[in-house]
C-alpha cells in the first residue's frame, strides 16, 4: 500500500464520501444542458443516411444523380468518398482497431453486411428534403444468403462475409481458406484433465445470450463545420472526443491538428458512444459543401446501425470435490461480432472464473462475424455473458452438493495475489466482504412467497486505467478551475470537484470543473472501462497538488522564509515565523499571485496503471406468474467494492442502473430477425427496456477496500454491477420455477414453454 492511501485510511474526509451538489445538476433539471442535437449553426445543412434493406448483398451500382438533382440537395456521399485503408495485420492486439473495417462500417464499399448498413448520405437544406433525396438514390444489389448464429457462421460451408478474413488461433493463421471465424483465443493453466480426475462431481452445461443494445436515450448527433483553411470543428455526443478526432483524421487521411472536437453534454453511452458512425460522413459532407452539417440518427437507425453488444453461445464445465472445493473449470464462448471482427474475447477469458481459486483452468473465446451490426462495447464488454454461464454452473454445483451458494463461493474465493488465468494478479480487494455482506443482509435472511425464487451471482471486472490529461488554474478570486479531457457521463465533473476540494481543503463550490476540447488539453482516452474517476481523478489530484506547491512557494516568498517551512492545511498556507503562526488563505494567495509570481496553474498527463479488480455480488428475488410466464423482480441487492466511494450517491446510482440493465438483459431485451435476417423490432416499443413499473427499489451495499494504487483508493464502479446481474436474475427464475433456463432472455413465452413442457 502506498503512503498516500495509508495516510488516508481511517481518516475523516471533508468532502469525499459525502453528498455534494451535482455540478451539472442545475442545467439538467432546467433543460439548459446542451446535448449533441441541441446545437445549431447558421447556414446549417441536415444530413440523412441511406441504409441497406438487405442483410447481405453485393453492391453492384449506386446512382445518386436523381438525388443530386433534387432542389435543396447540396451533396451526396457514398463509400467511394471515404478513403480505403489496408486491413490490420497480425499480430493482433486484444482490441483490434482496423480502419479497413471502420471505413466500410461508416459507409459500405463492396458489400452490405447487415440490414441497416449505411450505404450513402445526403446533405440538404432541410431534413425533409434530405429524407426525400434518400428515396431517389438507386442501388443495385446482388442479394446473398445471410448468417446470424456464431456457431453456424464458423462452419466451413457458411455464407462468407469477408473473402479476405482468415482464422487465427493463438496468434497463428490456421488456414488459407477465408472464414467468418476471425480468431480463437485461449488461456489455460494447470492440467485440466488432472483437475477433472480429482473431482467427485463434474457438471457441464450450455448457455446462450442475445445481443442487447446500450439503449442510451440520446441518439448520436454531430454537427461539423469544415473551414476554408481545411480545418474542421466538430460538436458531438461522445464518450471520448480525442478518440473520435483520431478516428476521423485517420479515416479521412487528415492531420489530427486539423480537427477540433468539442464534446457536448452526453445523454448516456454505456460503451455505445466509443465509436464513429455519422461523424466522418458529416465531415465529408461539410467539406464538399463548405457549410455546417448536422447529422442526428433516429432511434430506428440506432437499432439498425449502431451497437449492440455481442450475443453468445457458451459451454462451462466445472469439477469439484464433495466438500465444495473446485478442482477444475473449463469455459468456452462463441461471440458474434456482427459484420466486422472485434468481439470482446479477452474480457471473456478472464471473467469466467477469476473470483475463484482454481488450479486447473482453461478458457476459450471465439470471435465470429455474422450479418448483424458491428458490435460495440456495452458496460463491462464481454463479461456478463461469460459470468452468466460460469455462475450458472456454480449455482448448479451448490445445489448438487447441497451447499449454501454463498458459502460455496466463500470456500473457493481467490485470495489476494491469486494469478488469474489471463495473467493479472488480484491486488487487495473486497471479494470476501461483498460475499459476507450479502450473506448477512436482511434480504438474504428473508422468506420467499409462493411462485418466488431467489438468485445469486458474483461478478469480476478488471478496471481500466490509461491516458488522462488535466489542467487546473487558480483564479484571482481563489477559486480553482479543473478541466479534464473526459466527457462527463455519470457525474465525473462532480467527483473531480470533490477530489480537488479535498486536496485543497476548500469548499467544493470553489472548484469549477469542466470538460476541455481537443485543442486545449493533452490526449485523454475514453470515458469508459470505469476508468475516469480512477485515472482522470488521479490526474486531477496531481494537477491540484502542483497548484498547492506553487502556493506554498508564493507564501514562502511573502513571508521571506524557506518553502520547506510552509505547509498546506485546510485551504491555507501555514508557517511558524518568529514564534508566531502565520496563515494565508487560498483567496489571499490568489490575490497576491498575479503581481508577485504570475498566474498559478497545475497540470497532469498520465498513463494510469493499477486500477485493479472489483467484485460485485448480487442477490435478487423474482416472482414468476405460472400462467403467463411473466417474471417480476421483487427485491434486488447489489454489493460492490468501490475501493473508495468519492460520491456515494453516484456510486449507488451506478449500482442501481447496472442492476436494472441486467434485469432487461436477462428477462426481455432481444432483437427479432425474419427469415432474411431483417430486423423486425427497431423501436423502443418492440425492443422493450425496463420501465419504472417493471422493477423494485435496488438496495445497495457499498464496500470500501481502498485501491492502494490511487491517491484516494478509488477502483471505479460503473461496470461491475452489470456483470453478475443477468446470471443472478436467471438463477432466481430457475429457482422460482424449478427448471434450468439456459437461454437469455427469459421472456414470458420461453418460460411458459418450459413450464408447459413439464406438464
Amino acid at each position, binding site marked *: 500500500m502506498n503512503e498516500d492511501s495509508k495516510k488516508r485510511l481511517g481518516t475523516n474526509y471533508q468532502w469525499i464520501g459525502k453528498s455534494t451538489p451535482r455540478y451539472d445538476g442545475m442545467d439538467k433539471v432546467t*433543460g439548459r444542458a446542451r446535448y449533441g442535437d441541441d446545437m445549431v449553426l447558421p447556414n446549417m445543412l441536415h444530413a440523412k443516411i441511406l441504409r441497406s434493406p438487405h442483410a447481405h448483398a453485393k453492391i453492384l451500382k449506386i446512382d445518386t444523380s436523381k438525388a443530386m438533382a433534387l432542389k435543396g440537395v447540396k451533396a451526396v456521399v457514398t463509400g467511394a468518398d471515404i478513403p480505403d485503408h489496408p486491413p490490420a495485420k497480425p499480430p493482433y492486439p486484444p482490441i483490434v482497431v482496423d480502419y479497413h473495417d471502420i471505413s466500410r462500417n461508416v459507409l459500405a464499399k463492396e458489400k452490405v453486411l447487415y440490414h441497416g448498413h449505411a450505404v450513402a448520405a445526403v446533405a440538404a437544406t432541410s431534413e425533409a428534403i434530405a429524407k426525400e433525396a434518400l428515396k431517389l438514390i438507386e442501388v443495385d444489389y446482388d442479394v446473398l444468403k445471410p448468417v446470424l448464429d456464431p456457431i453456424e457462421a464458423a462452419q466451413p460451408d457458411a455464407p462468407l462475409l469477408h473473402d479476405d478474413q482468415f482464422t487465427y488461433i493463438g496468434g497463428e493463421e490456421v488456414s488459407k481458406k477465408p472464414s467468418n471465424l476471425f480468431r480463437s483465443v485461449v488461456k489455460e493453466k494447470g492440467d485440466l484433465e488432472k483437475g477433472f480426475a480429482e473431482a467427485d462431481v463434474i457438471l457441464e452445461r450450455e448457455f446462450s445470450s442475445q445481443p442487447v443494445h446500450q439503449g442510451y436515450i440520446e441518439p448520436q448527433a454531430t454537427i461539423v463545420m469544415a473551414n476554408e483553411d481545411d480545418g474542421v470543428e466538430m460538436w458531438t455526443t461522445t464518450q471520448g472526443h480525442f478518440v473520435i478526432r483520431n478516428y476521423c483524421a485517420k479515416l479521412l487521411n487528415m492531420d489530427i491538428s486539423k480537427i477540433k472536437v468539442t464534446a457536448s453534454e452526453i445523454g448516456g453511452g454505456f460503451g455505445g458512444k466509443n465509436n464513429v458512425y455519422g461523424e466522418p460522413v458529416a465531415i465529408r459532407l461539410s467539406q464538399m459543401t463548405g457549410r455546417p452539417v448536422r447529422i442526428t440518427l433516429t432511434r430506428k437507425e440506432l437499432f439498425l446501425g449502431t451497437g449492440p453488444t455481442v450475443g453468445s453461445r457458451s459451454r462451462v464445465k466445472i469439477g469439484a470435490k464433495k466438500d465444495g472445493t473446485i478442482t477444475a473449470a473449463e469455459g468456452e464462448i462463441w461471440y458474434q461480432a456482427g459484420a466486422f471482427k472485434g468481439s470482446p474475447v479477452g474480457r471473456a477469458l478472464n471473467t469466467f472464473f477469476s473470483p475463484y481459486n482454481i488450479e486447473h483452468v482453461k478458457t476459450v473465446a471465439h470471435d465470429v462475424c455474422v450479418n448483424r451490426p458491428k458490435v460495440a462495447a456495452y458496460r463491462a464488454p464481454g463479461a456478463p455473458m461469460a459470468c452468466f454461464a460460469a455462475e450458472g454452473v456454480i449455482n448448479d454445483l451448490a445445489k448438487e452438493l447441497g451447499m449454501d451458494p454463498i458459502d460455496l463461493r466463500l470456500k473457493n474465493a481467490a485470495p489476494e495475489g491469486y494469478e488469474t488465468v489471463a495473467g493479472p494478479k488480484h491486488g487487495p480487494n473486497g471479494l470476501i466482504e461483498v460475499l459476507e455482506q450479502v450473506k448477512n443482509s436482511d434480504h438474504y435472511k428473508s422468506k420467499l412467497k409462493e411462485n418466488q425464487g431467489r438468485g445469486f451471482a458474483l461478478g469480476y471486472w478488471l478496471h481500466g486505467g490509461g491516458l488522462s490529461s488535466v489542467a487546473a488554474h487558480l483564479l484571482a478570486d481563489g477559486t480553482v478551475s479543473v478541466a479534464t479531457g473526459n466527457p462527463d457521463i455519470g457525474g465525473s465533473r462532480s467527483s473531480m470537484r470533490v477530489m480537488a476540494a479535498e486536496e485543497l481543503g476548500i469548499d467544493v463550490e470553489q472548484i469549477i470543473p469542466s470538460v476541455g476540447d481537443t485543442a486545449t488539453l493533452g490526449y485523454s482516452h475514453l470515458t469508459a472501462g470505469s476508468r475516469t474517476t480512477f485515472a482522470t481523478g488521479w490526474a486531477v489530484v496531481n494537477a491540484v497538488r502542483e497548484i498547492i506547491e506553487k502556493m506554498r512557494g508564493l507564501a514562502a516568498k511573502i513571508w521571506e522564509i524557506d518553502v520547506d517551512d510552509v505547509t498546506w492545511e485546510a485551504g491555507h498556507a501555514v508557517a511558524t515565523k518568529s514564534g508566531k503562526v502565520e496563515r494565508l488563505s487560498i483567496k489571499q494567495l490568489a490575490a497576491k499571485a498575479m503581481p508577485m509570481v504570475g498566474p498559478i496553474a497545475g497540470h497532469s498527463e498520465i498513463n494510469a496503471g493499477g486500477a485493479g479488480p472489483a467484485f460485485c455480488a448480487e442477490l435478487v428475488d423474482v416472482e414468476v406468474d405460472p400462467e403467463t410466464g411473466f417474471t417480476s423482480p421483487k427485491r434486488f441487492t447489489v454489493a460492490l467494492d468501490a475501493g473508495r466511494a468519492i460520491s456515494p450517491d453516484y456510486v449507488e446510482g451506478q449500482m442501481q442502473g447496472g442492476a436494472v440493465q441486467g434485469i432487461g438483459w436477462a428477462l426481455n431485451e432481444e432483437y427479432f430477425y425474419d427469415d432474411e435476417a431483417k430486423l423486425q423490432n427497431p423501436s423502443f416499443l418492440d425492443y422493450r427496456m425496463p420501465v419504472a413499473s417493471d422493477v423494485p*427499489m435496488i438496495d445497495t451495499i457499498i464496500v470500501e477496500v481502498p485501491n492502494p494504487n490511487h491517491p484516494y483508493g478509488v477502483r471505479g464502479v460503473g461496470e461491475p454491477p452489470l456483470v453478475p446481474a443477468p446470471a443472478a436474475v436467471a438463477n432466481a427464475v430457475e429457482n422460482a420455477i424449478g427448471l434450468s433456463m439456459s437461454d437469455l432472455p427469459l421472456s414470458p413465452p420461453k418460460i411458459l414453454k418450459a413450464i408447459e413442457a413439464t406438464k
Partner: protein
Amino acid sequence: MARHHITATINGDETEFSCHTHQTLLDVLRTELNLTGTKNGCDTGDCGACTVIVNGCAVNACLVLGAELEGATVETIEGMSDGKKLHPLQQKFLDHAALQCGVCTPGFLNMAKALLEKNPDPTETEVRYGLAGNLCRCTGYDKIVRAVLDAAKEMRANGS
C-alpha cells in the same frame, strides 16, 4: 408548402409561430422556437423524453402536431422553475441524485408534475406506473421514484 400560423401560450407567454403540417410539437419547440430542453429520444412516442404538458395533460410532444396547438397552453421544462426558485420536483431530483446523464430528466419532471397534479399523494406503485411511459437507462429508477415521492410530500405540506 404553405405554413400554418399558430398562436399558443407557451410557458405563460403568448407565442406565435408558423409550421408545416407535418411538423410535430417536438419539432416546433426545438427547431422553430429553440426550446431545446425538450428532448428527442425516439420520435415515436415510446421513450417519454419529449413529455410536455398541453392544456394540463402530459403528452409526448412527438405525437402532437404543431398545427393542432392554436389556442393551446403548453408547459415545457424551460418554464418549470420561475427563474429564481426551482420547482420542488426539480429540487428533489437534485437532492436525491435522481439523474445521471440527464437527457430523460425534462420528460420525467413534466410527467411527474402532471402525475402529482392529478394524484398529490401517490404510492410507490402509483409513481412507478405513472412514470412507466418514460425511459431512463442510467438510474434504474430508484432515485427518481424516491425524488417524486419526496417532492409530493413536500408539496402537500406546503399546499402547493
